């Protein structure tokens, strides 16, 4: 048996036999080179299928389908609130990632009680020294406000149009969990600048946790890193805000939207 490599399909010979322009030759050579190693033809087929699926016709809207004489068109903005909360969430994620370059979750640097800490100073630095920093923080803050507002209004819309009814109970519960997590997101972000209001809001959080029977002390340790506020609290809130919650909330939003996709939008009829 010959050790020489057999090439059943001599793609290069085929390439040479074609009368191709330079661009076509370069494209095909790259494609063949990649396909030999990664078998991308299969994935290209998948992409093609997705292209055709995406170009399907959208069904008629509810009012068109049931000939409701455009009576309810003015309710339609309420049906984009879930989408608005996702858009605001993405905007907050992008601006938050940029803020993360400059923010330091540390209570160091305060010589006496009430002196600015490293966290506070980094916020001042962001607002005063960083190019576009004041706007960046403003965008992050307002995106968060818009997200929370949109999430609340989204829940009201779902409640008052009865969209939570069978078979959508699971998604309603998921939505309640997402609201709670959004509020936790907001709370942990509120603590990070380590201003007076941040500190005392966190203080109320610790007191609430400690007031809970059985799990209280454990919850205080887990969330606030102890029974009194300090460096541990700030770092825990920071990790919660930039690591734990983003993953959890993003995953839950994906499931939430996925279930809507599978079950279809509840008709407001």
């Amino acid at each position, binding site marked *: 048996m010959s050790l020489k490599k057999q090439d059943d399909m001599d793609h290069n010979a085929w390439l040479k036999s074609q009368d191709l322009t330079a661009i076509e030759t370069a494209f095909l050579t790259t494609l063949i080179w990649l396909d030999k190693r990664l078998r991308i033809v299969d994935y290209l087929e998948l992409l093609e299928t997705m292209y055709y699926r995406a170009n399907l*016709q959208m069904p008629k809207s509810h009012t068109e389908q049931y000939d409701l004489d455009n009576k309810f068109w003015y309710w339609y903005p309420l049906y984009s609130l879930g989408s608005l909360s996702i858009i605001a969430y993405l905007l907050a994620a992008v601006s938050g990632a940029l803020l993360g370059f400059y923010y330091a979750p540390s209570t160091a640097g305060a010589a006496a009680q009430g002196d600015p800490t490293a966290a506070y100073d980094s916020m001042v630095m962001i607002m005063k020294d960083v190019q576009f920093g004041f706007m960046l923080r403003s965008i992050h803050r307002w995106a968060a406000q818009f997200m929370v507002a949109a999430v609340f209004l989204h829940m009201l819309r779902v409640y008052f149009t009865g969209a939570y009814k069978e078979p959508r109970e699971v998604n309603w519960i998921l939505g309640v969990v997402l609201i709670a997590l959004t509020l936790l997101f907001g709370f942990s972000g509120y603590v990070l600048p380590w201003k007076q209001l941040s500190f005392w809001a966190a203080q109320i959080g610790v007191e609430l946790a400690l007031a809970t029977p059985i799990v209280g002390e454990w919850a205080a340790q887990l969330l606030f890193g102890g029974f009194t506020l300090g460096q541990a609290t700030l770092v825990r809130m920071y990790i919660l805000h930039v690591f734990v919650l983003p993953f959890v909330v993003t995953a839950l939003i994906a499931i939430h939207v996925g279930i809507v996709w599978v079950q279809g939008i509840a008709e407001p009829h």
Partner: protein
Amino acid sequence: MTDDTTAMTDGGTDDEARTDGGPPATVPPDDETPTWSERKERSQGLAQLTYQYFERSRREDEDLRTESTYVERDVLGFPTWPHETIRNLAITSFFLGVILLVASILPSHFGDPANPGSTPAIILPDWYLYWSFGLLKLSPINPELAVLGGNIVVSNELYGLIAHGAIFGVITLVPFLNKGNARRPVEEPGWAALGVTGVILAITLAVLAIQNFFPVPLELLFSLVFMLPVAGGVITYAVLKTMREGYMYDLNRRYYMLRPPK
């Protein structure tokens, strides 16, 4: 060891000197993999129940499909590209634009650094947690038990936490309490009234949280916190109940015109 000595990679046959791990493990032929029905028969307990249920559910689907008189028709509509995509991009840009505009004209406030030594006169969370903060100020209605000499049973903080739990619990249970096909508030005035009560309660609780800003005696404010939601709920109920008569007539007429009863 055995007589069917396999050649080693270097061509030798001495098993003592073998260092290449031996011949490849035997791959079971395809027909040894159990088929779907074999697996169903072999399975026991929960797995078997799952198979049985899936079979039933598939048969149910099949029956419904064969019984159905549904005819698939072409539905006229807008294509995803470009119509829907452009529209969604327009909505998204509008939302983003509003957020950026508000962010640029209303920059956020930045207060003094944290001072564990001095409690500020006003402690407040962000506006969306005012309702929650208001729930923590319910100590005037924390019940006192005479048998305990007028002492409260649960601490005021725990009382507030229980209120949170109750509210989240009720909201979670809504889909299991309210069933049926009704979709519009007029069809279920009671549930709509409950919703309005909840919304107004959230607002009044928020007001209770920022009570310092309202020049109203605390007792009056406290009464209003609970009276206003109830009043709002009653008014909603009355209005919707009145609307319902004429509205349902029209709705039913449209519905039966579209889907005449068999």
